[in-house]
C-alpha cells in the first residue's frame, strides 16, 4: 500500500529528470530522496542509509549519463551496483579447517531460526560429502534439544546432547572430543537464543568460544528485523567476532534491509539465506538479488538492465543522427524493431518505462506481438533499395512483398502508411531546428 504510492512518486521523478550530459547535483538529490525512503521502508538502519546516500552522492554527481539511460535511471544504476558491491565479494561457503573437525557456532536472538539453520547447514554439508555432527547446546528453551534431535533423525545426521541440565560450555567441549573420536569432520553448535544485552548469556557464548575455538561463528538473523538489527549485530560481533551471517525467512515478503545494516556495522558477509521451511531450503547468498530486493524499484532496474544489455550505443547514436536529418529508412526502422524485440514483450516494456505505465492514453494499449512479427516479415521481404526508398514501392511490388511475407497487400499498405507518417512527424521535429527532442517535448518512438 505504502509502496505503491512510493513507486508512483519515483516514476514521476524519473520522468521529470531529462537533462543530458553529466549528472547535476539537482538530479542526484532529487532521486536520492526517493532512494532514501525506499531504503528506510526496507528497514535499512537510518544511520546506514545516511552514510550510504552521502557516498552515492559523492560518486554520482558529475558522472556522465550513459546514452540509453535517463539521469534518474543512471543514479539508480549507481545505487544498485553500489549496494551489490557492499554486500558481495565473499563466497558463500563454510571455511573448512585444514585439520578437522571444523567447528561452527550458530548464535543469535530468540526465534531467528538458529536450530533450523543448523539443520539446513548440516544437511548441505552432508550432501557435499562431509560428516557433520550437530550439537544441542540450547539448554534453556523447553524441548530445544528434542527439536534438534528430531531434525537430526530426519536428515540422518547424529546429534550430540548431554541433556538440559549440563553447562553449554561442557556440552560444546564434549561434542568436539566426540567428533574427533568418531571421525565427524564438521561440528555445528546450536546455541540458545539470547538477547544481545543479556550479560550472563553473552558471557556464556564467550566461554564456549574460548573452550572450542570455532572456525566460524555465524550470526543467524531474521530478514524481517527492523532498525534494531544494527544493535544486535554490533553486540554479537563485539563480543564474539562473528565470521558470517545466515539471513533467515527470506521466503517472505520482507525487503530485508537488515542484510545491508548488518554488513555495514560488522563488515561480515551474509553467507547463506534461509528460503523455506523444508530442510533443503538454504541457499547461497546472492548480493545482486538482495540489492534489488532492498531497493525495490524492480521495474526500473529491469528496464535499466535490459537497455544496457541490448542497445548498441553506436547504432543508437547513428539512428538519432538520421532522425535529426529525417533520413530514417525502413532499414533503420527494422533495426530498431529488432533491438526492441530483444528487450522482451513490448507491452511489458512499456509498463516499465517510468511515466508510460501511468499514462492514461496508454492504458489498455495492447501491443500485439504477432503484429510486430508481421511487420518484420514485410520489411524482410523488401529489397534493400525498397527499404531505403519506400517511395518506389508500387502496386506490383506491394503484391510481391505481401506474397513473400505471407501477408496481405492491405498489411503492406498500412505499414507503409504508418512509416511515412512517422517520417513526416520526424521531419517536423527536424524542421524546428532544435533537434527531434526539442525542449519540453517527449521523445516518441517511431513505432509507438
Amino acid at each position, binding site marked *: 500500500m505504502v509502496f505503491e504510492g512510493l513507486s508512483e512518486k519515483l516514476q514521476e521523478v524519473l520522468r521529470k529528470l531529462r537533462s543530458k550530459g553529466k549528472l547535476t547535483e539537482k538530479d542526484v538529490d532529487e532521486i536520492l530522496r526517493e532512494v532514501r525512503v525506499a531504503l528506510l521502508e526496507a528497514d535499512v538502519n537510518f544511520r546506514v542509509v545516511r552514510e550510504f546516500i552521502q557516498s552515492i552522492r559523492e560518486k554520482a554527481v558529475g558522472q556522465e549519463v550513459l546514452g540509453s539511460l535517463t539521469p534518474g535511471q543512471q543514479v539508480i544504476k549507481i545505487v544498485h551496483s553500489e549496494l551489490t558491491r557492499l554486500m558481495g565479494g565473499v563466497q558463500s561457503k563454510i571455511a573448512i579447517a585444514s585439520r578437522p573437525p571444523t567447528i561452527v557456532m550458530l548464535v543469535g536472538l530468540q526465534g531467528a531460526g538458529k536450530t533450523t539453520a543448523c539443520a539446513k547447514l548440516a544437511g548441505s554439508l552432508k550432501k557435499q560429502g562431509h560428516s557433520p555432527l550437530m550439537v544441542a547446546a540450547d539448554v534453556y528453551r523447553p524441548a530445544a534439544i528434542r527439536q534438534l534431535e528430531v531434525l537430526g533423525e530426519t536428515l540422518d545426521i547424529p546429534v550430540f546432547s548431554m541433556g538440559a541440565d549440563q553447562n553449554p560450555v561442557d556440552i560444546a567441549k564434549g561434542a568436539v572430543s566426540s567428533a574427533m573420536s568418531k571421525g565427524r569432520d564438521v561440528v555445528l553448535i546450536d546455541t540458545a537464543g539470547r538477547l544481545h544485552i543479556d550479560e550472563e548469556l553473552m558471557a556464556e557464548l564467550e566461554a564456549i568460544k574460548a573452550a572450542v575455538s570455532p572456525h566460524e561463528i555465524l550470526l543467524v538473523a531474521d530478514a524481517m528485523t527492523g532498525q534494531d538489527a544494527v544493535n544486535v549485530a554490533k553486540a554479537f560481533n563485539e563480543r564474539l567476532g562473528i565470521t558470517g551471517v545466515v539471513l533467515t525467512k527470506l521466503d517472505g515478503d520482507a525487503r530485508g534491509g537488515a542484510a545491508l545494516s548488518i554488513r555495514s556495522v560488522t563488515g561480515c558477509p551474509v553467507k547463506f539465506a534461509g528460503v523455506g*521451511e523444508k530442510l533443503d531450503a538454504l541457499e547461497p547468498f546472492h548480493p545482486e538479488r538482495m540489492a534489488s530486493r532492498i531497493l525495490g524499484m524492480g521495474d526500473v532496474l529491469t528496464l535499466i538492465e535490459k537497455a544496457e544489455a541490448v542497445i548498441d550505443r553506436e547504432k543508437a547514436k547513428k539512428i538519432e543522427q538520421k532522425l535529426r536529418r529525417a533520413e530514417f529508412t525502413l532499414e533503420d526502422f527494422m533495426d530498431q524493431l529488432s533491438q526492441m524485440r530483444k528487450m522482451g514483450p513490448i507491452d511489458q516494456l512499456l509498463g516499465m518505462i517510468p511515466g508510460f505505465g501511468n499514462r492514461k492514453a496508454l492504458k489498455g494499449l495492447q501491443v500485439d506481438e504477432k503484429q510486430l512479427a508481421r511487420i518484420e516479415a514485410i520489411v524482410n521481404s523488401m529489397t534493400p533499395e525498397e527499404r531505403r526508398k519506400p517511395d518506389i514501392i508500387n502496386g506490383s511490388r506491394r503484391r510481391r512483398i505481401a506474397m513473400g511475407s505471407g501477408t496481405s497487400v492491405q498489411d503492406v499498405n498500412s505499414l507503409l502508411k504508418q512509416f511515412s507518417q512517422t517520417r513526416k512527424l520526424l521531419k517536423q521535429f527536424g524542421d524546428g531546428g532544435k533537434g527531434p527532442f526539442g525542449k519540453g517535448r517527449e521523445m516518441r518512438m517511431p513505432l509507438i
Partner: protein
Amino acid sequence: MIEMANKIANDGSGGNGKGVSFLERLKQGLKKTREGLVGRVETLVRGRAKIDDDLLDDIEELLIESDLGVSVATEVIENLKKKVAEGRVTSPDAVMGLLKEELLALVGEEGESIRAAAGGTTVIMVVGVNGTGKTTTVGKLAALLRASGNRVMVAAADTFRAAAIEQLEVWARRAGAEFISQQQGSDPAAVVYDAAAAARSRKVDYLLIDTAGRLHTKSNLMEELKKIRRVVGRELEGAPHEVLLVVDATTGQNGVAQASRFKDAVDVTGLVLTKLDGTAKGGIAISIRKELGIPVRFIGVGEAVEDLREFNPRLFIDALFSS
C-alpha cells in the same frame, strides 16, 4: 498512573529476576526502550532555544529508528509542525509532551483486555510468523489466566515444527493447564476439534490454541489457519473470541504486511508484542494499530513465566517519554 510512570522512569536500576514487582519488571523490560528514546530526545532538546526544523528532523529520525516507519513518522512530525505553527507549543521542552500526546493518539488511549465469552469457554487462538514467540506466549498466557483462578486448557496445534508439542507441554505443566495434543504431523484442525470437545465436557474457562508459525505469504498455510478457525467456531459458540497475532518487537516494516495478511485470513483481534526486553523499540505496533486498527493486548518483557503483561498504552508511552 503518571506517578507510576515517573517511578518507572526515575529508577534506572533493577533487580534481576525473581520476586520483583510488576512495575519493576515492566520497567526492566522497557528500560532499554526508554533509555534509547527519552535519553536522546532529551539530548536533542537540551540547549535549544527554539523549535526549528533541525529539531523536528532529528525527532523524525528518532521515530524512524524506533521502527515506526517513514510514513507514520512523517505524519507525526507534520502534526507537530502544525501545532507549532498554531502556537500551541513554543519551547523545545514542550515538544516532548506533544510528541507523547501524538503517539498516544495513535496507539489508543485505553488498554483493552481480552474479550471473554458470555458464558462457557473463551477461546484464544495465537498466530504469527515463525520465531516470534507464539508457544512461549501461550505458555505465559496460560500461567497468567491460571493465576487469576481460571481453568485453562492448551491445545498444541503446531504439529509441524519439530518438538513444538513437547515445548508447549512443558509450558502447560509449568502453568498448571490441561494439555491436548496429537502426534507431530497430524492435522492441526483435528487437534483443535478434539480440544474443543474436551473443553466443552471439562467446562474449562479458557482454551488457548497454539498454532504453527507461518509466513503470511504462504497461502496454503494461511488456508490451514482459516480451517482451524472455522473448526473451532463450529464446535464452540462465538469462538475464537480472540485471535492474537504475536509480533516480535524487533520486526521492521514487514510487520504491517504480516498483520494485514493475518487479519484478512483469521480476523486478528489483538497484538502481542514480544521481546520488548531487548533494545528494539517495537514501534511497528504503533504502525499496525494506525494502519489496521489492531490494538496491542499484551507485551512480553522477559523469559520468565510472569513476564507477559497486559498492555497499558499510557504506561507504555509514559515510560517511553517521561524524564
